[in-house]
């Protein structure tokens, strides 16, 4: 009997079991079904059915426009993300380590944290013109403060006793940073990348809508002006799919790797 009661305890699903796959598929079909039924009630002009949207996606893909716009958006996301993460991590680390930097930077941080994305984007376009640099800078500035805050917290939480260990054993700075400090910051970097990426996904479209001649945001703007719902959905859904793929293939494995030494939570 005890053997049976053991086996009835569900094992923690770290790896993707077949059951999770089935559940995901089920959840996706449910979403499609709801959409389709809703489309039947509301009518094609406001909510086109899944096949109608799929047709637009195929048409845009075969003309190459879809990839052009997606590519432009992804490039902006990548640049702004890398810029904001590296700058934000460095500033956050500095503010966590040096009291003076923290005192000086804090008012700016609070300002940036609470500044609406739209203000930053519009100001960037006014000051730097409707340029690529302005768009990327505006997106990066929106993501910067959250990266700073997260990394500052991470730096404040660093284990002093391990720092002392590194000092006593006279570890060179870079080795101590790489093996003592960085692993402690890794979960914070992962968390900040996670939340930062989702923020960038949202803001990049606004920046494109307001001042770029290409990208998913630009296309959505055009679709909005024409009230072209199939086109709007075609671009939004493809974009969402790309985001999903990047999150599962890139961000989650990185997170898992960064925390692999931790005892697994059941």
């Amino acid at each position, binding site marked *: 009997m005890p053997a049976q009661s053991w086996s009835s305890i569900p094992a923690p699903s770290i790896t993707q079991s077949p059951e999770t796959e089935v559940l995901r598929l089920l959840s996706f079909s449910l979403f499609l079904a709801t959409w389709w039924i809703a489309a039947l009630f509301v009518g094609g002009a406001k909510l086109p059915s899944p096949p109608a949207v799929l047709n637009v996606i195929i048409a845009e893909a075969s003309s190459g426009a879809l990839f052009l716009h997606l590519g432009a958006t992804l490039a902006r996301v990548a640049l702004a993300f890398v810029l904001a993460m590296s700058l934000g991590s460095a500033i956050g680390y500095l503010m966590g380590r040096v009291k003076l930097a923290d005192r000086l930077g804090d008012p700016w941080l609070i300002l940036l944290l609470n500044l609406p994305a739209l203000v930053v984007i519009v100001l960037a376009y006014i000051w730097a013109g409707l340029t690529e640099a302005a768009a990327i800078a505006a997106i990066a500035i929106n993501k910067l403060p959250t990266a700073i805050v997260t990394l500052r917290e991470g730096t404040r939480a660093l284990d002093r006793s391990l720092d*002392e260990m590194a000092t006593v054993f*006279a570890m060179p700075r870079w080795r101590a940073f790489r093996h003592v400090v960085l692993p402690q910051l890794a979960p914070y970097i992962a968390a900040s990348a996670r939340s930062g990426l989702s923020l960038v996904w949202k803001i990049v479209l606004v920046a494109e809508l307001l001042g770029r001649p290409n990208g998913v945001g630009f296309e959505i703007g055009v679709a909005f002006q024409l009230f072209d719902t199939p086109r709007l959905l075609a671009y939004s859904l493809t974009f969402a799919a790309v985001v999903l793929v990047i999150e599962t293939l890139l961000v989650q494995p990185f997170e898992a790797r960064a925390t692999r*030494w*931790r005892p697994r939570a059941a």
Partner: protein
Amino acid sequence: MRLEVDISGKTFRSAAGETHEVLAPVSFALQSGEVGVLIGPSGCGKSTMLRIILGLDRDFHGTIARPPEARIGMVFQEPRLLPWRSVEQNVRLAAPGISEAKLSELFRILELEAHRSHFPGELSLGLARRVALARAFAVEPDLLVLDEPLASLDDALAGRLRDEIATLVASRPMMTLLVTHSLDDAVRLGDRLFFLSPQPARILAEVPISIPRGARGDAEIAAIRADLVARIQGEHGGEHAGRDAS
């Protein structure tokens, strides 16, 4: 090589703004090849003294003279291993130049061979302490500092580890500073014992043990221990220094 400690005082300001005297004037010196033992009640300021000697705490009055090129090996009270690095990596990070033969020898003496690739989170306290010891010896230190390396281990395990430390300490000449509140550690491992007072710590008595460490059998150790206990009880932590314990 010689370590000279001359602390004239250390005060600590609490969050409430009161100043506490942690250390009274303390001075002693340690030669290469010599094991000094600081014995004192918990909370008397031993760890503060160590932090000052190691250069981690510079906010004190007095001077610490140790050769600037002296390599330090340290065993902290808590093992202070890097949880995200394996046992072997933990040791190699502190001692990047160590040869495979030396490392194997250390792991053999400390019975860690089976745990090389384990992470510290997978080890018992006893094993984690052994890794901390391996790391300290791996750097081939000129100054070895052991801060209660056997605390909160059961007697049998503490006894075994004490013998392993004795073997390693005897294997090369270095200045060793052991902090403990166990008389057993002191009489097995020490050459000169410094008895400390409660906070603010000062040296109550300095007791050299004349029988060399290697020549101390169980009978000698028991005799030295009995003598020390008698003295401590007789003098009630008295202040007469310099009498030979053996």
